[in-house]
């Protein structure tokens, strides 16, 4: 069973991820308006009516407020062409902030208040939402709202920003959704645990953003345990569950025999990754360049026992691509990942770290010397700042092995 509450978003994670300047206390920067919000809101279409017809990517949003009484609903754009990209972060890493905000502003969110356990006995609306989520391609939907959606953009901690929203009156799926056989199989198998379902879909190459939505809409897990999972929890649960399976796999592989360094930057963020010739360990440092502040979480070979308390969602979003890379090259290694956030950043969700890392791994440099490798990380602040904060680096340099003492 997925312990979904494990993956909830804490107050500190929320605060850290709100605004680089005011941390969510609006207008502390001294300006009379918030430039981020204004920039976002100019993109909003002004002529949204109380009924919207369009091709849902497919997409849904499940809120966490009021848990276990939550809001679920479809995201429907007033367009029927090229909508898939609007809810697929896998395709965003080379897009501009403006384009991404544009995708999100186009999606109109319906809200229906239900209990998380209603995933088991869905009413007509929730059943339609679940059916929609299973679709492999954008699916035409008519969404009717109680009133005209309010024109605003909201940013969240882990999920991509969300656009206009209104209480949902009714939803009609206007065509037969196309569903892959494997999705059908996993969803209808009520003996399959949620984590097995996630792994099965992942190994069948179903995009991660879709797996997250399928988990979120209460379509995975054994019998009575199925429930709606808030989108933000579902994002991190999916990252963690896939990573745990990959970690087990890579522990059987030979250790890397040199250092490797990977860098990539986009969207006012950058990632800097170093792989060590070692057994598995992982550390992520999130660095807010403007305020010089660090958050650090790590795990040694024993694996992560508790929850990543400082980075939370960002830890799991950056650990998964590292394990994916190790699985691809069939090697075991230790990893230090530095996630830098620049002042012109706006909150887009943790997918950016996942996708920046995946992109970074396309191009690496090899080193035999640790100091040369560390220099090649090409960081914004002096190297010793990062080194001081690192537990895994200290452990890598000083931890002896029992095999050193073999008689």
């Amino acid at each position, binding site marked *: 069973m997925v312990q979904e509450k494990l993956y909830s978003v804490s107050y500190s994670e929320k605060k850290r991820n709100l605004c680089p300047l005011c941390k969510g206390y609006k207008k502390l920067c001294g300006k009379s308006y918030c430039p981020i919000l204004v920039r976002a809101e100019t993109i909003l279409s002004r002529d949204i009516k109380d009924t919207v017809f369009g091709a849902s990517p497919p997409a849904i949003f499940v809120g966490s407020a009021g848990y276990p009484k939550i809001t679920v609903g479809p995201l429907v754009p007033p367009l029927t062409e090229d909508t898939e990209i609007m809810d697929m972060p896998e395709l965003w890493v080379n897009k501009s902030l403006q384009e991404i905000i544009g995708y999100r502003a186009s999606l109109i969110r319906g809200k229906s208040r239900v209990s998380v356990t209603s995933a088991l006995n869905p009413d007509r609306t929730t059943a339609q939402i679940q059916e929609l989520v299973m679709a492999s391609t954008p699916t035409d939907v008519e969404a009717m709202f109680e009133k005209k959606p309010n024109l605003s953009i909201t940013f969240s901690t882990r999920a991509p920003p969300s656009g206009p929203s209104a209480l949902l009156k009714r939803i009609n799926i206007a065509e037969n959704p196309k569903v892959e056989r494997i999705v059908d199989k996993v969803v209808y198998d009520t003996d399959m645990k949620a984590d097995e379902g996630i792994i099965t879909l992942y190994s069948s190459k179903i995009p991660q953003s879709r797996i997250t939505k399928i988990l979120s809409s209460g379509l995975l897990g054994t019998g009575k345990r199925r429930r709606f999972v808030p989108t933000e929890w579902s994002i991190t649960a999916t990252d963690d569950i896939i990573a745990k399976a990959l970690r*087990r796999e890579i*522990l*059987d592989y030979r250790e890397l025999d040199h250092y490797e360094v990977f860098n990539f930057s986009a969207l006012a963020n950058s990632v800097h990754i170093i792989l060590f010739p*070692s*057994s*598995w*360990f992982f550390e992520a440092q999130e660095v807010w360049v403007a305020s010089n502040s660090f958050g650090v979480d790590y795990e*040694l*070979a*024993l694996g992560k*026992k508790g929850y990543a308390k400082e980075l939370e969602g960002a830890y799991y979003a950056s650990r998964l691509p590292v394990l994916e890379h190790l699985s691809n090259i069939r090697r*075991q290694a230790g990893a230090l990942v530095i996630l830098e956030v620049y002042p012109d950043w706006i909150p887009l969700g943790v997918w950016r770290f996942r996708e920046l890392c995946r992109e970074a791994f396309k191009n690496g440099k090899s080193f035999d010397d640790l100091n040369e490798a560390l220099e090649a990380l090409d960081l914004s602040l002096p190297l010793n700042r990062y080194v001081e904060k690192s*537990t895994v680096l*200290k*452990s890598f*340099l*000083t*931890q*002896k*092995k*029992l*095999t*050193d*003492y*073999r*008689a």
Partner: protein
Amino acid sequence: MFEAKGKVEIFKRIVEVVSVIVNEVKFNIKDDGFHIKAVDPAHVAMVELNIAPQAFNEYNAEDTELGVDLDKMESIIRLGKGNDEMDATYDEDSERLVIRIGNLVRKMTLLDVSTMPDLKIPNLQFPAKVELLADDFLLGIRAAQSVSDYVVLTAEKDSFELSAGTQEEINQKFSKEQLLSLECKDKSRSLFSLDYLSSMMKGIRSGEKLAIFIGNDYPVRIEFETLDGNASVAYLLAPRTEIE
């Protein structure tokens, strides 16, 4: 061939003691009991667990090797209470471990033991041995964790000391009288990762008596008995070197 009946508690304890080091493990089952040796993926920590047949109500075994996924085993025994009777049998035909708790039967597939080699325990000579109550040691480890990621253990002729931290410091010193016993030829001092030590502490229960063997820049061996003296456990942990 293997069949054992006993309290769920026995299997709970196996999972507790071993899973802090590793999740997949080989049970070496012989007529003189259960023997488990496991090392963590980084070869930094090891556990050795021996359970005598007397721990069980009924025990009947010829040499058998079972590859067990401890997470899976944990999910089964979680269904029983510590005092419930449990019956574990190896079904050779289906190559599964059959566990019965009350009228609940769970057949568990096993891991391939051919990929799990027998481990050699390093042959170590320790100049110092300290005996104390687990609770005293646990307290020190917990305190150390709040200031550092490693701890220094020092044994001298008439004291045993645990210290951690540089700016923020923790120190816990036991005189010979405050310990159950102390044997120390030469001053022995080694550094250990608190990630590993605190993980091992989760395998130790309050009230258990620990024998701690240390040396100079040398591994530590922590021994204790559990299951009413019918099982013996030893954890072994490699040291960290001084940071230049």
